[in-house]
């Protein structure tokens, strides 16, 4: 935080709703992140610290690098410089292995049934519960019930609508406990009711001591948020700078 001139620290906005935030143990620290994609610098020297129980809402214009930032945190884009650390997590796991990525693609196999899709991810993704993160494991059927697609459990996933696929993809986050959720446009393809459900789940995750980084254009009514606004401050500069507001 100190070593980056373009970013100011922003604490949790609403501290009363979350007691653990006073003594954060899990901490996601990104220092001087610099990313090149396709020979073009997407952003440089982006730093932030995210405390336990806080959601970081990344905003900014299209193409500014929000998805790139999330994919970097997910370990899918290699860093040209900088460092990502998770303090208080499992020491023998990399930060992205303690992370759920909920991106634009649903990773749903149409040839498998809804339940088969979900049980595969439950067994395949390693659960990385941290001592200080109280996230509980939900059974696959329960997770489907929670998201209102339990009646489709034994149907091939090919028959699901876009929104239902999205919800199936979301249920993946519930069956394996991991402290960090990266959510790229989480509300896309969801109706109003599911949006409300999504917010409840996200707030639940924060309340149990998780962290969320989300890129979004809609206002999400989350309990404790910091905002990271990415923008190009000066057209003469090549790299967009980032501001916390």
């Amino acid at each position, binding site marked *: 935080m100190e070593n980056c001139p373009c970013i100011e620290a922003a604490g949790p906005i609403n501290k009363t709703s979350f007691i653990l935030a006073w003594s954060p143990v899990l901490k996601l620290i990104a220092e001087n992140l610099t990313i090149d*994609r396709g020979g073009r610098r997407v952003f440089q020297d982006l730093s932030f610290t995210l405390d336990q129980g806080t959601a970081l809402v990344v905003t900014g214009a299209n193409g500014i690098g929000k998805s790139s930032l999330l*994919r970097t945190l*997910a*370990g*899918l*884009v*290699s860093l040209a410089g900088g460092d990502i650390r998770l303090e208080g997590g499992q020491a023998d*796991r990399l930060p*992205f*292995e*303690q*992370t759920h*990525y909920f*991106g*634009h*693609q*649903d*990773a*749903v*196999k149409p*040839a*498998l049934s809804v339940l*088969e899709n979900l*049980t*595969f*991810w439950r*067994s*395949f*993704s*390693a659960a*990385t519960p941290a001592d200080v993160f109280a996230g509980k494991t939900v059974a696959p059927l329960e997770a489907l019930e929670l998201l209102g697609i339990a009646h489709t459990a034994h149907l091939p996933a090919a028959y699901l609508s876009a929104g239902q696929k999205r919800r199936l993809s979301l249920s*993946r986050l519930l069956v394996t406990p991991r402290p960090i959720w990266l959510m790229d446009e989480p509300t896309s393809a969801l109706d109003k009711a599911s949006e409300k459900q999504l917010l409840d789940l996200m707030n639940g995750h924060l309340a149990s001591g998780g962290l969320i980084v989300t890129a979004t254009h809609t206002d999400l009514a989350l309990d404790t948020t910091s905002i990271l606004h990415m923008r190009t401050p000066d057209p003469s500069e090549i790299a967009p700078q980032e501001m916390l507001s």
Partner: protein
Amino acid sequence: MTGWALDLFQRDLKLSVRIGGSALVGVLFFLAVVTVIPFGVGPDLNLLARIGPAILWIGALLATLLGLDRVFQADREDGTLDLMLMAGRPLELVVLIKCLAHWVATGLPLVIAAPLLAIFLNLEPLAMGAVTLTLLAGTPALTLIGAIGASLTVSLRRGGLLLAVLVVPLAIPVLIFGVSAADAAIHDPVPFLTPFLILCALTLIAAVVGPVASAMALRFSAD
């Protein structure tokens, strides 16, 4: 610990069985290659019997190449590959298991079909057995080497042809020792075991090099 490996294997097997007769397409292609050659070579039964093992091996190699491009591409297109990279499982092992499932779904049917197709080529029962045995030992190597090509071309829309160009040169040693082992079984003075053991060694080497190289390529492709 091994629970996830078994689940991954079963899932991949289920997918290849449900999605579209990958086993059947491979076997049909194998059949097409093997039946076309006698028409080209002409009705010389002795010649056919002599080159039969080679034809079966080349047919199996081409049929193996057929389905390889989808091994990782299907997972990349729907975002599954991203999640696999983040799953916290050793990627080399994931690749090995995926290759194993792919071989069971596409390579094993070729091995099973080989004795039947050997009849078309006027092979003796002993030669049939020898070719089938060498294919059983050698086709896993083809799949594992092919996985390197599959992961290198994973981001290309039409990577199939490039994959074949990449993989075929690497598969030549397997072809040489597979065919020479099968030939050795038919022609008495040459020992069968020497080329066969080298073939087995090639498969074991491919089982190490293939997953490691393939995992490296997949990590790179996620960007």
